[in-house]
């Protein structure tokens, strides 16, 4: 599914912040339609898969904190849930 404006924004911000080797932003809002925190226009639930050198040597909690910090504005407003799979290159 093509990303809407919020998803595109998430992708841009993560690309700038981490220069990832792999980045996949998936809008999963349709899976949560009608649930708590869902938005009538979608773009409320996202899954992010990201691999970046920036995560080298970081704990899982640190990696997630870095991603959440980069997307702080989105998490405060539109985005209700952000599933994160972050790792350093193998």
């Amino acid at each position, binding site marked *: 599914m093509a990303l809407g404006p919020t998803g595109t924004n998430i992708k841009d911000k993560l690309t700038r912040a981490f220069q990832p080797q792999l980045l996949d932003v998936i809008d999963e809002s349709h899976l*949560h339609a009608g*649930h*708590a925190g869902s938005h009538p226009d979608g773009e409320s639930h996202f899954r992010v898969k990201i691999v970046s050198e920036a995560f080298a040597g970081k704990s*899982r*909690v640190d990696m*997630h*904190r870095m991603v*959440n910090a980069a997307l*702080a504005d989105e*998490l405060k407003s539109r985005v209700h*849930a*952000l*599933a*994160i*799979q972050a790792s350093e290159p193998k």
Partner: protein
Amino acid sequence: MTDIKTWIDNEVKSNDVVLFMKGTPDAPMCGFSGRVVQILDHLGADYKGINVLESGEVRQGIKDYSNWPTIPQLYVKGEFIGGCDIVTEMFQSGELKTLIAEKTAA
């Protein structure tokens, strides 16, 4: 604010495994909280569930305490382990079982 921080600090340090969640272990109110409950139950972990929906102060307080923006949040022996994604990842790799067994061994 100091009071809620002290209360949370006491909860995570006086219970081996604490899950801050939406709803209760018997009736989770959110899919992400529900998934962590299922994992802990599957592992046979003895844990305390704290329903953040009962108190706006706790709900915001735990986010500040952990520097973590979302619920659920799992603590083992006073250490913040992570939210739903990390707990799931650690369960799948077997790390969570080992961690809980090691940390809660008498």
